[in-house]
């Protein structure tokens, strides 16, 4: 589903990604962990070209994002959830969810709203359709953001630290939605600090540090039996 080859990314003189190779299979849930500044968010943001790779290739669902392909077309298939939600504050929850299906997929308004209400039901916010984002709690906003991304019927979902900006008591309501999504077979790449989620939901755990994938494998294995020194050091701090 996602095929990354020899991905390099530099900001000025600073090389953030130093040659990443990564293949993510359909329906696979890949959890990416690592210290701050390790390049894990940049790696995720290269998967929908919010960051333009300096070199290397990123292919998603057969579309080469680093080639001449229409990036907007490709992004229709790649859902993104941000740390700080990035809902559109001047629109109701329903308008937030229906905007892209109507404008990008040319969906009829009625149909888009029907899908939006189903998605809101699914994330437990059916009663918030007419609310404005600033009226919602962080956890509610993030669930709306997930519904907004799902409304495009994406083939892949990218999560960039989706619970890092939340108060502790709201983390689980968001993780629960992500869990059910994973159980339904969504292909997911998740950058997170939630080790419990990584262990429980992840098919594969990636430890990134210094712009390289240091270690990867089934989460249980990596957590219980890390092979690399740097992984051990990191896990000893966060577990």
């Amino acid at each position, binding site marked *: 589903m996602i095929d990354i080859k020899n991905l390099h990314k530099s900001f000025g003189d600073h090389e953030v990604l130093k040659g990443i190779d990564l293949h993510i299979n359909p329906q696979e849930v890949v959890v990416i962990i690592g210290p701050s500044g390790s390049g894990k968010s940049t790696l995720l943001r290269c998967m929908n070209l919010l960051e333009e790779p300096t070199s290397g290739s990123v292919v998603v669902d057969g579309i080469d994002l680093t080639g001449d392909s229409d990036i907007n077309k490709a992004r229709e298939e790649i859902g*993104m959830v941000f740390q700080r939600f990035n809902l*559109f504050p001047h629109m109701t929850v329903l308008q937030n969810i229906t905007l892209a299906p109507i404008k990008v997929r040319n969906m009829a308004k009625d149909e888009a709203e029907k899908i939006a209400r189903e998605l809101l039901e699914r994330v437990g916010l059916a009663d918030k359709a007419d609310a404005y984002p600033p009226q919602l709690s962080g956890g509610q906003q993030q669930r709306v953001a997930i519904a907004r991304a799902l409304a495009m019927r994406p083939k892949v979902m990218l999560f960039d630290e989706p619970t890092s900006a939340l108060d502790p008591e709201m983390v689980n309501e968001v993780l629960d939605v992500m869990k059910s999504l994973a159980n339904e077979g969504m292909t997911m790449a998740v950058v997170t600090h939630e080790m419990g989620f990584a262990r429980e939901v992840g098919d594969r755990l990636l430890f990134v540090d210094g712009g390289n994938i240091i270690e990867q494998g089934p989460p249980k294995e990596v957590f219980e039996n890390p092979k690399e020194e740097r992984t051990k050091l990191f896990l000893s701090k966060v577990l």
Partner: protein
Amino acid sequence: MDMNLNVDLMINSLPLLIAGAGITIQITAISVGLGLIIGMFVGIARISNVKLLRWLAAIYIDFLRGTPLLVQIFLIYFALPVLLGQRVDPFIAAITACGINSGAYIAEIFRAGIQAIDEGQMEAGRSLGMTWVQTMRYIIVPQAFKNIVPPLGNEFIALLKDSSLVSVIGFEELTRRGQLIIARTYGSLEIWITVAIIYLIMTLTISRLVAYLEKRLDTK
């Protein structure tokens, strides 16, 4: 020194002056409307990804903010006809000069208003598959409008005052009306005081209106 004000002259000149004030408001409103359209496109061009557009927008803004409005009025009313071989109507010249001038200031207002919007909004729009233009249109610009109401109100007030400059091309707005009445009555003191008060009433009213509008937008 004769400090007696001829109050009758002030009262008698009111209908003519108020009609002139109406024309002042009219050219200001049309010019700001024109400036708003120009300013929106130039402001967006100023921060677009296309180098040529950014460059053209910068030239436009620099030229119009770097030369006096009075000179711009002369350029359009006196210099342009030399090129066109045809007289320009004072009203057209007035709104064109004021509109193009105000477009440059409003472009900067727009640019600042857009740049104040969190980057995550553009990223969210683009991530949903929307184009840059779609994201600007549906997400960024509507939010920027809210940010720019106060500075736009200030621009309206500034232009309302600056529009007195078009009196030099004989266009009969408030200031020109004052001059014409004085030419007839020699009542400099009375008429300029009256004219100043009318301008003051207009600018104060507009600033109150803007403050009210700002408050209403804020609570939504």
